[in-house]
């Protein structure tokens, strides 16, 4: 049994030597292998800064992703987390701590509602039937709380178009 193992080992050694071209080849291959593993354990991260301030920015970003995805190599890099996207300064979400949204379906939006929304840094999505008081609108403008009235596309900060 042990002789069989020995034979097998020498056979494999020989085969490897043939395949890699001498003992130097083995060492070289081993080196190449180790450098490869080093690379895979510490992948070079590429950080791309994205600024999402408006709907146009989002559309542009999506187009950029689609362009990048056509190349299999970059697509793989994105999947592996080697290509990372970071929110830039001009981003809406980055200017606040939290960019959650609060939906209000019925009743009224008053000053206290706005103050609560400002504390959590969230955007208000307001149904059509909901009344936004004048004071709430003023406060929203002061605190920079965005009120989005449902069924309307473009809104200005703190203002509600009726």
């Amino acid at each position: 049994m042990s002789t069989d193992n020995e034979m097998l080992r020498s056979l494999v050694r020989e085969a490897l030597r043939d395949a890699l071209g001498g003992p130097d080849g083995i060492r070289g291959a081993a080196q190449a292998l180790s450098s490869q593993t080093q690379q895979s354990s510490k992948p070079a991260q590429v950080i791309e800064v994205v600024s999402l301030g408006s709907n146009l920015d989002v559309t542009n970003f999506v187009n950029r992703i689609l362009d990048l995805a056509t190349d299999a190599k970059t697509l793989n890099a994105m999947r592996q987390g080697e290509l990372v996207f970071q929110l830039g300064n001009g981003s809406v979400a980055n200017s606040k701590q939290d960019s959650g949204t609060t939906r209000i379906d019925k009743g009224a939006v008053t000053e206290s509602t706005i103050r609560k929304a400002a504390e959590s840094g969230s955007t208000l999505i307001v149904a059509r039937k909901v009344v936004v008081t004048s004071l709430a609108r003023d406060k929203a403008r002061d605190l920079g709380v965005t009120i989005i009235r449902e069924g309307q596309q473009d809104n200005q900060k703190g203002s509600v178009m009726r």
Partner: protein
Amino acid sequence: MSSNALGLIETKGYVAAVAAADAMVKAANVTIVAREEVGDGLVAVVIVGDVGAVKAATDAGAEAVNQVGELVSQHVIPRPHAELNKFFKVGESA
């Protein structure tokens, strides 16, 4: 009291209107000048006062109505024109 702003709150239901009126006069230095009932349960309360007071009052009124009934609409008119008083009894002397 100078009345350089007009505040209006319209509710569905009489009880909500009373609650709104009470909350408004308690919240700020305003006076109630009119109560309009246009039918279908719609009741509007009109107040006058300084712009800031009227804004604060209508906000408090809206908050109160939120608890009791249904708020239909709310509006503040800063410096209403005197002409309004001819046909809408919303002035201080109305």
